[in-house]
């Protein structure tokens, strides 16, 4: 199946001379939820804004559902919905007016039933006659989503959809995103909440300083880069690691009460059985042990700092 969005050698240098994107190549698969991660200023919004037609790329091509976004902007943009990072609302408009406006703006014939369904889905129906300025921030964010969905897009960009949103609404949004995906909508989102990406995404891309440094299936990524840690809670505290255990590069933690061993969960030989055997052999007693697997967050942090370290 051809990709629903295909980004080919896209770069962006702003008028200020700042290179926000180095050549980016990325294919988004139809029907997936793709999470774009990266620190502040990495270029996530720039990339999304280019795809949506808000920022002009310096070079490269982008195809949305087979249409080049600059040459064939009409069919391309008709397919795309965008919830921008910043909350920008026309404060004097009502919820209903602004949502029907968006639908019309995107070239769709009026459809009251459809707009009603979206507003109900987003729990905005009761507020439909209210001016946007009377809504809370979370509600405004939902209005932005309603606007983005009003023209029935098949590709949806969510630029930090859950920034400043409470836990309950976040859950609601996740549910909504899944529902959309189940209806065949492809979703590209950015987030600073790694747990969100971990929870939602099928695939993850990491962008840092304008460079796409990694694109991977979420599961593979966690597996591939996943480090596991084995912690042994000692019976007697230690002051230093016995030389017999030097091969395992252990760390002494909790004031000498714990030994920590970091290993690659996917490796052929993890070194765990031999370590445990050796410890028993040399007579170190432990009363408990547990293992933890690194989260996406740890992976992300190590990826980004590694890169930053390398280029600095």
């Amino acid at each position, binding site marked *: 199946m051809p990709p629903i969005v295909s980004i080919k050698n896209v770069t962006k240098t*702003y008028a200020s001379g700042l290179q926000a994107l180095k050549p980016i190549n990325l294919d988004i698969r139809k029907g997936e939820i793709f999470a774009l991660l990266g620190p502040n200023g990495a270029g996530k919004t720039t990339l999304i804004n280019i795809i949506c*037609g*808000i920022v002009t790329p310096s070079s490269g091509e982008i195809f949305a559902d087979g249409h080049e976004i600059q040459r064939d902007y*009409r069919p391309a943009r*008709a397919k795309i919905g965008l919830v*921008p990072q910043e909350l920008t609302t026309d404060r004097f408009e009502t919820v209903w007016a602004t949502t029907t*406006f968006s639908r019309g*703006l995107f070239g*769709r014939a009026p459809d009251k039933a459809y707009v009603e369904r979206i507003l109900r889905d987003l729990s905005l129906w009761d507020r439909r006659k209210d001016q946007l300025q009377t809504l809370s921030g979370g509600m405004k964010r939902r209005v932005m989503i309603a606007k983005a969905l009003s023209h029935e897009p098949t590709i949806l960009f969510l630029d930090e959809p859950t920034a400043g949103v409470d836990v309950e609404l976040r859950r609601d949004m996740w549910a909504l995103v899944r529902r959309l995906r189940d209806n065949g909508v492809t979703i590209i989102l950015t987030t600073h909440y790694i747990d969100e990406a971990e929870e939602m995404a099928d695939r993850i891309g990491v962008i840092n300083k304008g460079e796409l440094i990694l694109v991977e299936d979420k599961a593979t990524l966690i597996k591939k880069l996943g480090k596991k840690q084995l912690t042994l809670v000692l019976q007697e505290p230690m002051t230093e690691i016995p030389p017999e255990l030097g091969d395992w590069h252990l760390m002494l933690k909790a004031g000498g009460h714990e030994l920590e061993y970091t290993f690659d969960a996917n490796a052929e030989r993890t070194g765990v059985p031999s370590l445990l055997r050796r410890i028993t052999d040399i007579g170190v007693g432990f009363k408990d042990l547990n293992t933890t697997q690194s989260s996406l967050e740890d992976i992300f942090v190590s990826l980004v700092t590694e890169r930053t370290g390398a280029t600095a």
Partner: protein
Amino acid sequence: MNALTFNRHSVWAIYKFEMARALRTITQSIITPVMTTSLYFVVFGAAIGSRMTQVDGVPYGSFIVPGLIMLSLFTQSIFNGSFGIYFPKFVGTIYELLSAPISYLEIVVAYVGAAATKSIILGLLILTTASLFVPIRILHPEWMIAFLVLTSMTFSLFGFILGIWAQGFEQLQMIPMLIVTPLTFLGGSFYSISMLPPTWRTIALFNPVVYLISGFRWSFYGTSDVGVEISLAATLGFFIVCLLVVGWIFKTGYRLKS
């Protein structure tokens, strides 16, 4: 779908949105200009006009009506045209316009169309108000409407350009206040330039507004400072210049896209 298809839903959405905004702010968009005009009549028409009697064979109060309408058309068209596009830029909702499947031509048609519609309605309202104060004759109604429509469109388009160019509210108000209003006052809204001393008359002829007002007044009373063809050509010329500038703006994304 190709670039030639006209996206009527999009254009209609913007047009309707803009008209709805005008209705919501009806005091600002309609009542204020009508009241200002009435004040002009009291001051210029009644107070000064009683001493001036006639200009080019037309009672002074009636003589100033076309100029007054033009003055309002200029300022209100510019205001409406600029505000319509400046406001989304200012609050950030422009992202939606830029990401919509709409061509530049359609954006211009929608915004300028709405701004011009408002001006035309306003012009007719002022005309009606004026007719309550002074007798009005319209010798060439079709030309009157033509000038009304063309001027509204041209200045709305000019306002649209201003709205894209402006980076703050001061800039938005600067051009109308510092250039358009003075040129209009000096351009014979309240007098015929034939009343000026010869040197000033020559200088006045460099004022483009003279040509715009002159044709409009001719459609009322059949008298004019310059030929009506010249008036028409001047208005059309300004319209085309604005069109070219808008074309350039959209081609380069000037102050719209980074």
